[in-house]
């Protein structure tokens, strides 16, 4: 027989433990305005993961698209709460990229590099997004800008290699 006070303590502990789980559930109806940006980033991640890792490889494109739109919404909410959230911008850029919304992706990756100028990989992804829509000059400009933030010889060589490849692709497109 468990004493009543201890029984209540168990119940209270169980409820307290369950609360964070409930709040992390995508259908949670807690107030967006009160939630921290981090919370929306996590919700956005959940939606993105469902769309990108569960739906898309199984060719459930409509379902994936639905999840991506929800992910976009969540990341935008996070940014509305914290416009300097590097993670939110990066994640939003990624969702836009997999949706093939390349210019919006490039815009978000640029925000990442604005907030974190030493993030060379983000410059590369910005350039990649630009090349997808054949904005080669913008892509090369981003990679050239990246070179100013590293003195790693191997990385500089790789950036130059990327620039060369983009220039080749640009010439190929121009010739057509």
């Amino acid at each position: 027989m468990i004493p009543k006070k201890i029984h209540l303590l168990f119940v209270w502990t169980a409820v307290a433990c369950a609360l964070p789980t409930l709040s992390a559930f995508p259908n949670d109806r807690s107030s967006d305005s009160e939630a921290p940006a981090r919370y929306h980033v996590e919700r956005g991640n959940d939606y993105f993961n469902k769309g990108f890792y569960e739906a898309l490889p199984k060719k459930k494109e409509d379902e994936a698209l639905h999840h991506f739109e929800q992910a976009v919404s969540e990341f935008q909410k996070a940014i509305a709460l914290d416009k300097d959230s590097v993670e939110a911008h990066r994640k939003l850029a990624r969702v836009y990229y997999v949706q093939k919304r390349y210019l919006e992706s490039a815009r978000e990756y640029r925000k990442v590099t604005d907030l974190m100028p030493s993030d060379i990989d983000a410059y590369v992804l910005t350039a990649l997004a630009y090349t997808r829509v054949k904005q080669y000059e913008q892509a090369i400009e981003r990679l050239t800008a990246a070179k100013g933030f590293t003195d790693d010889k191997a990385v500089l060589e790789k950036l130059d290699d990327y620039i060369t490849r983009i220039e080749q692709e640009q010439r190929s497109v121009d010739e057509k």
Partner: protein
Amino acid sequence: MGVLSMKPRLRRPALLVPALVFFNLCLGLTPPAWSADPHSAFYSARNDRIFWFIHISDIHIGATGTQDSDNLRWIVNEAKTVIDPSFIVASGDLTDSTNGGFTPSGPYQEEWDEYRAILNPAGMDASFYYDMPGNHEAYNDRFFSYYLSNAIQGQATGQTQVSWTRDFGFGKYHFLGVNTAGNTGDPFSIFRPWGDPAGLDEDELTFIQAELVQHQDADLTLIFGHHPLTDTGGSTDTWLFYGQEAFVGYLDAYGASLYGYGHTHRFKEEIFAGNDYTGFMQGDGIHYFNIASLGKSTDHQYSIMAVDCNGVSIATQNVMTWPVVMITAPLNKDFGQDTNPYVYDVPGSEKNPLRALVFDPNALTGVRYRIDASGDWHSMDPVSGNPHLWEAMWDAFSLAEGPHTIAVEAASVSGTGTAVIQVNLVNATTLYASSSGTCGTKNPCYRFIQDAINAARTGAIIRIAEGTYSESLTLNAFKSLTLQGGWDTKFETQAGATILRNAPEVPEGSLTLQSLIIKPE
């Protein structure tokens, strides 16, 4: 395929093996025969103990250009038809994860769709095509969702590692495809290690160990993965960053013959016996084979691996080039720049077997061989029942002991293909025969008494391990030999019984029998 769950990772596999045997004994289980042994290769006139398969890697479907798709399509169609392999192994980087871009940013379903659009019409299925993930399948995908949904093996097994066997009647052979790609889902990075934290975690090692335990009764074990085991010296390479000690320990403890990998896009074959980073092996090491990239390299794009009387041979080729020639018996004493520790010496016999696989979509106009560069060319004959295998008996009687070269050349309207190997010729006065295929430290060792009779020069003694032999023995050459039975398996004492089911026939020459019982069933 079995998975042993909840087995703790053991970093000292050398101690693990006897521990497992003891555990089995405690459970009343009989431990399986401990026979996976690269030393079991034997030189024999038997031409029906051979199989072969294709190894490819780094296909990179989705890379810029069409080489990736064109070459994979050629492998699973023309090469598969002409070479007729037992199966195909693809050791990672199946897709490029770039979708034509200049840097990996996937996974891309489009690349996987293209991959399957090539494989499906060619009839590739999970019983024939063994594909495993590489780092390009791991970028941005820590759970390998795209591999599991789209790769032939991933889709069929729901796992990222695969284990399979082939039983040809003359032996059982075990194969493992391991997932050396990291499990973090890191994106590609321009900084080292380029989003590629390769390694084998506890779950992966547990699977590997369990499969090795389950198939200890295999004659040979051959293992494939994407990454090198250790630093290659290449400035842009990655290798196993964790789990390497346990894995190399398993290769050693369970007698693996070969670790085949890709990743570097370079071709190299060597013998690896461990180092400070992986731990040193107690055995003689493994064939450590690096195939170049099918989708991106310009040469050494695929290999054919053959097992002939338990000897492993490898021919590395460029796509769309015929004929392909590979010598499978005798074994090449060289493996890259290293000496193959599992090779046997060849005897100074008048009739030494020579076998070569020849593949060509067109009819061959001739297959011939010669011994040493100064030797004459002699024709080879097709083996009945095996349209790809050619054989001959070469005369080594008058050759000096030491190294010699054997070349085989095949010609057709496709062109001319040549294979060259090195052998070491030894004129032994005492030869050994044991049905186990191993004779302790004694050499030369033959699995079949008849092969020892064929190999022996006049005056030689053939010592035979205890046991019962059902061979039909014939001496049909002008030489005098002694067959001596009753030897233990290490050939140290002669107190056992050797029983021959059939009395030897001697149309020519003379045969002296000692300590042998002739007892038909």
